């Protein structure tokens, strides 16, 4: 058995961890991370102490713990492996890797080996879709896994190697956080565009340009650029800032949403690896425009390994007085940024859920209105934009709105970074002007064998590769940037199953349609895929999917059935192929043998006797 700390030792260590934090619930997730890292789970004995420190009940602390995927109350092993089970991983050989891990570690997924050294678990997309199959081991991503590399990794764990040693990181790399981050997850930039990926960047240029203007002029500048939020919904950025600037409040906040959880996206990983300072400058510009003094980068737990790199970037910015008090000598312009971690919850990418999480609570989306620009973090007006949007802000301020406006289409100006994965020759990130045709994109990705394309991840749309004339832009195919290519040999019902299971797992559970509805859809799809379905089951799926869309409380539920609906619409044949019975059959398919199996085992009888 692993050395499990006794209650007294847990209490002593917890007390010393807690002593380093203020009695502020918004620190709870950071505290829980320290506990999880230290004990490989959150010990029961630590909970009353954390509750006491925060002035809340134990059940309230547990509310936060149980919500997040990476917080556990059971020991997860000294080496905790989280293997990505999203569709891109499955297409790249997930099952082989899963089997290899189980064979080498000698335990099943969902548990630890007998000496508590290695724990095997599954997780959803970790932002390494261009390098699948991938897994997080103690928070560090390992891409392009093979059964052979798994064998080597498990051997290394048994030898007690550090995670960096497992990765093969030498001294030269570990001293340079940027190089290290690049080594851990190579950026894979496939196409440099004119705004973000192909342009030189010098630290401070954006803030210097910004300070030549009055705050209101910054908002006008962004308004003239017609910039829209890059998260997928495309809300005009200037409008958001305008609302926040005019909202009443003694304090205002800028929050950068670095919780790109949509399976298939990893562009923010690249932007944060290559140009983190540019993101922070964008945040500073927003702070200047709306009058905020504090910013937070809400970093998804899967990107925790970037923290040292991001921290060092923040230190550099502070050293150059690009953050801190009286930035670049402008009196009254004080702004600093802290990094706050998520802990594994897709729904926290929704801005109001993100704010809840930032406050140390479970990430349940808020009811809106009021919107975060009026009632945000700690009830104060808050601007939430994502990594790509803030990066664009920095560029627009430097080069001007008009320049940006000339790119793209009428309603989608500028460029978009696409995260491309799946069955294509060139997975990676691409910066393209909005409005590119599907035909061009497929060529660009080297996806000649494509049957279908998932635009915008599981919450987006499935389209057929034959829809070559369609365009990626808000007018036609809006996207947050996830593009997954499916080759001819892929089964679309299987893909849809992976997507709906993802939503069933990630639903916050607050509202009935999403919480109860997605598992129902998942079960029904499974029935069809297993050949037990009736033709009317397909109609039922469509009907129920539309109900979930129409009645769910937040964007997660409202978009969760999108992929099933569009998949059925475009590839109905593949669903019908799985169905053997006529419409209106009176006796349904039922595997009575399977239903008798368990009791026959217990009683020692054979099902054939009846």
């Amino acid at each position, binding site marked *: 058995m692993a050395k499990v700390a006794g209650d007294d030792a847990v209490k002593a260590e917890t007390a010393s961890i807690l002593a380093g934090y203020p009695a502020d619930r918004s620190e709870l997730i950071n505290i829980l991370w320290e506990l999880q890292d230290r004990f490989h789970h959150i010990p029961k004995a630590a909970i009353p102490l954390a509750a006491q420190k925060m002035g809340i009940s134990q059940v309230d602390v547990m509310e936060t713990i149980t919500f997040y995927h990476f917080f556990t109350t059971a020991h997860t092993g000294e080496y905790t492996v989280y293997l990505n089970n999203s569709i891109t991983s499955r297409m790249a050989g997930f099952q082989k890797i899963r089997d290899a891990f189980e064979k080498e570690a000698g335990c099943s997924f969902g548990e630890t080996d007998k000496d508590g050294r290695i724990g095997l678990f599954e997780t959803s997309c970790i932002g390494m879709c261009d390098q699948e199959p991938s897994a997080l081991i103690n928070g560090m991503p390992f891409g392009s896994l093979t059964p052979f590399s798994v064998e080597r990794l498990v051997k290394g764990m048994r030898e007690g190697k550090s995670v960096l040693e497992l990765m093969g990181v030498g001294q030269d790399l570990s001293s340079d956080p940027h190089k290290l981050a690049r080594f851990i997850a190579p950026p894979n930039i496939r196409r440099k565009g004119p705004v973000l990926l192909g342009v030189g960047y010098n630290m401070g240029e954006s803030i210097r340009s910004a300070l030549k203007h009055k705050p209101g002029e910054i908002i006008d500048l962004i308004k003239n650029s017609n910039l829209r939020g890059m998260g997928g919904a495309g809300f005009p950025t200037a409008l958001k800032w305008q609302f926040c600037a005019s909202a009443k409040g003694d304090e205002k906040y800028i929050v950068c949403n670095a919780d790109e959880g949509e399976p298939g996206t990893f562009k923010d990983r690249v932007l944060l690896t290559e140009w983190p300072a540019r993101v922070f400058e964008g945040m500073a510009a927003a702070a200047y425009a709306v009058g905020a003094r504090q910013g937070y980068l809400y970093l998804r737990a899967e990107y925790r390994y970037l923290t040292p790199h991001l921290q060092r970037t923040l230190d550099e910015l502070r050293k150059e007085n690009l953050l801190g008090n009286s930035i670049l000598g402008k009196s009254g312009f004080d702004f600093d940024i802290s990094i706050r971690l998520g802990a594994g919850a897709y729904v926290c990418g929704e801005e109001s859920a993100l704010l809840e999480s930032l406050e140390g609570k479970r990430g349940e989306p808020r009811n809106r209105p009021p919107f975060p620009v009026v009632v945000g973090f700690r009830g104060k007006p808050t601007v939430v934009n994502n990594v790509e949007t803030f990066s664009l802000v920095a560029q627009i301020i430097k080069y001007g709105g008009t320049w940006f406006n000339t790119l793209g289409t009428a309603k989608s100006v500028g460029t978009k970074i696409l995260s491309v994965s799946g069955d294509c020759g060139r997975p990676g990130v691409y910066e393209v002007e909005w409005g590119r045709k599907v035909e061009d994109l497929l060529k660009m990705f080297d996806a000649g064998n494509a049957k279908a394309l998932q635009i915008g991840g599981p919450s987006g749309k499935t389209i057929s590769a034959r829809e070559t004339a369609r365009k990626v832009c808000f007018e036609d195919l809006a996207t947050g940037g996830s593009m997954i290519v499916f080759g001819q040999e892929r089964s679309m019902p299987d893909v849809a199953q992976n997507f709906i299971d993802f939503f069933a797992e990630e639903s916050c559970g607050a509202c009935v349609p999403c919480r109860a509805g997605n598992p129902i859809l998942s079960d029904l799809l499974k029935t069809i895929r297993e050949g037990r379905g009736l033709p009317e089951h397909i109609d039922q799926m469509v009907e129920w999917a539309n109900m979930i869309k129409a009645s769910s409380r937040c964007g997660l539920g409202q978009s969760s059935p999108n992929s099933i609906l569009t998949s059925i619409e475009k590839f109905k044949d593949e669903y019908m192929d799985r169905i053997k019975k006529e419409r209106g059959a009176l006796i*349904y398919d039922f595997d009575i043998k399977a239903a*008798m199996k*368990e009791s026959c085992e*217990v*009683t020692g009888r054979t*099902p054939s006797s009846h």
Partner: protein
Amino acid sequence: MRKKIVATTSLAGCFGCHMSILDIDLRLVDLIELVEFNRSPITDIKKISKRCDIGLIEGGICNDENYHVLKEFRENCEVLVSVGECAIMGGLPALRNNIPIRECFEEAYRNVPTSKSGGGIIPNDDELPIILDRVYPCHELVKIDYFLPGCPPRADLIWETLLALVTSGAELPYELVKYD
């Protein structure tokens, strides 16, 4: 008018729903004027002997025999009605649905206070129906046309429904439709 032919059965139920059928009291006499009973505990006919118009199913599906009977009813009845909570959702027998079957057997036959300590055996005679992994609602295995909830369904509800099925449609009053 030809008499409608009715078949009834109790699967994983307690016969309470059949008691409720008898509970229509004197109206039974009227009913006999309108329908002819085929397979039913009431007639003691063990097999459906001709095509029936209406089949009433009490109880869910907890073993293989239940399933075969349900199929026999579906194949031979024009209209099939789930009568009572057990037929509709498994009812009390379905309380075991989230307990592993081994635990159920152990509890029922070995650990139960009335069994000899450690001595009881789990019945395994080939004559016995084989228990299924869980109790299934009837409409998840075959098409069910109508549902009469209640534990048991109120006698008046059964009467109104039979009347409606035999003659023409009728609106069921609120007080009759209850789940307990």
